């Protein structure tokens, strides 16, 4: 029985790893799931930090996934990560278990720390907030690429 313990434990850990590898978590504040693997492709839905998607395929840096609501589309690989369960994972949470970006959500240098810092720093964040609001639509970016013969419309990739 004892001899069986280690192989069973290893099998469970490997199975958990395989299953976890198929589920990805969104690590950016917000991103779009797109209808094709390019940044200016129409959005299927908006994904927020911590949302899960099931990976069903990949093409270059893009991941094809399914949302929990069953919507299918593409997200860029830099917007998601595989939750990590390894002992040697890069970050360790306060509970003693290893964790990832999502498990550390809101911890460390966060909004509460920024608010606390603001009280003493006497800094104006008006333009930082305005800057954060600058957003170029997918349609405008595609027009910009097309007009300037960039990316797929010119010499880029």
């Amino acid at each position, binding site marked *: 029985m004892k001899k069986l313990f280690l192989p069973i434990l290893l099998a469970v850990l490997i199975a958990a790893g395989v299953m976890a590898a198929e589920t990805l978590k969104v*690590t*950016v*504040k917000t*991103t779009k799931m797109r209808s094709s693997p390019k*940044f200016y492709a129409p959005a299927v839905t908006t994904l927020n*930090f911590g949302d899960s998607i099931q990976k069903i395929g990949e093409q270059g*840096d893009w991941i094809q996934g399914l949302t929990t609501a069953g919507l299918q589309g593409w997200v*860029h690989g*830099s*917007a998601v990560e595989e939750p990590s369960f390894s*002992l*040697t994972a*890069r*970050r*360790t*949470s*306060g*509970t*003693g278990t290893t964790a990832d*970006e999502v498990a*550390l*959500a*809101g*911890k*460390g*240098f*966060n*909004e*509460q*720390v*920024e608010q*606390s*810092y603001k009280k*003493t*720093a006497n*800094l*104006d*964040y008006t*333009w*930082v907030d*305005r*800057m*954060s609001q*600058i*957003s*170029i639509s997918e349609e*405008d*970016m595609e027009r*910009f*690429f097309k*007009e*300037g*013969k*960039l*990316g797929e*419309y*010119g*010499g*880029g*990739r």
Partner: protein
Amino acid sequence: MKKTTLTLSILAVVSILACATVSKMSTTVLEKQGVISEEQKDSIDKVAVAVEHSFEDLTEEQEYYLGRSVAAKILNQYPAYQNDRLTTYVNKVGTAVSYTSDRPEIYGGYHFLVLDSEEINAFACPGGFIFITRGLLSTCRDEEALAGILAHEVGHVCAKHGLKAIKKSRLMDAFDVLLTETSKHYNQEELSKLTNAFDGALGDIVDQLVVKGYSRQQEYEADQLSLRYATAAGYAASGLVESLENMSASTDTGMGFFKTHPAPQDRLEQVRAEISSKGYGSSVDPARTKRFGQAVG
């Protein structure tokens, strides 16, 4: 006995992995006591060092909050240039080169702003807040040059050069709170400790960006990334060459960019060698030059 040794070894490994501040002394003691072998000691040391190093690796969200305050400090020194058309255009060029970067999706996205200053300068704050002065913009003759500069700044963000400026002690203080506190809302003592570490980290980054500048090696790395990102987007590699040549011809060499960057001539040499070795193209589409003139001119 064997069972006890194995249990002790596992406990030792787990505690060493769980404690980033552990020194190699602990493993040396365990080795001397015969609990672990020399080989085991070496491999535990390697993992412990890896965990320790990982403390420099802040989450994207923390990078974003650091970047917001670094950007606020920059905007405290340099006013924003209020021109919506130009802001939109600069953001389109910057976004285009970010698409082909190593980190196209970051926590809060990339945002670009022109600073109302004659000084020739550009700043890349962590978290994707990127600034270019009117002075530097005026040295650009076309969209290729602007794309080269913005891709260089995106390169600094992707390589996390700003975060690397933070002294390890600040991170250790911050992670000390993070490791012991499971709640996302901190009590006064924890908040005070984190705020002090945050303040210190901001000081380290701003000092690097505005006063000392990045290392020569980091600047060359950002140039290499710029060439890769801009040409992947379809821009001519000559854009970065042109912008460096224009800077090199500038008479305003005593401040800003010139104070914090290696001499443009030195960078030009490296950039030309990189273009030649990678075979980057230099085809400029007139439509891009035309729209640059309309937005910037």
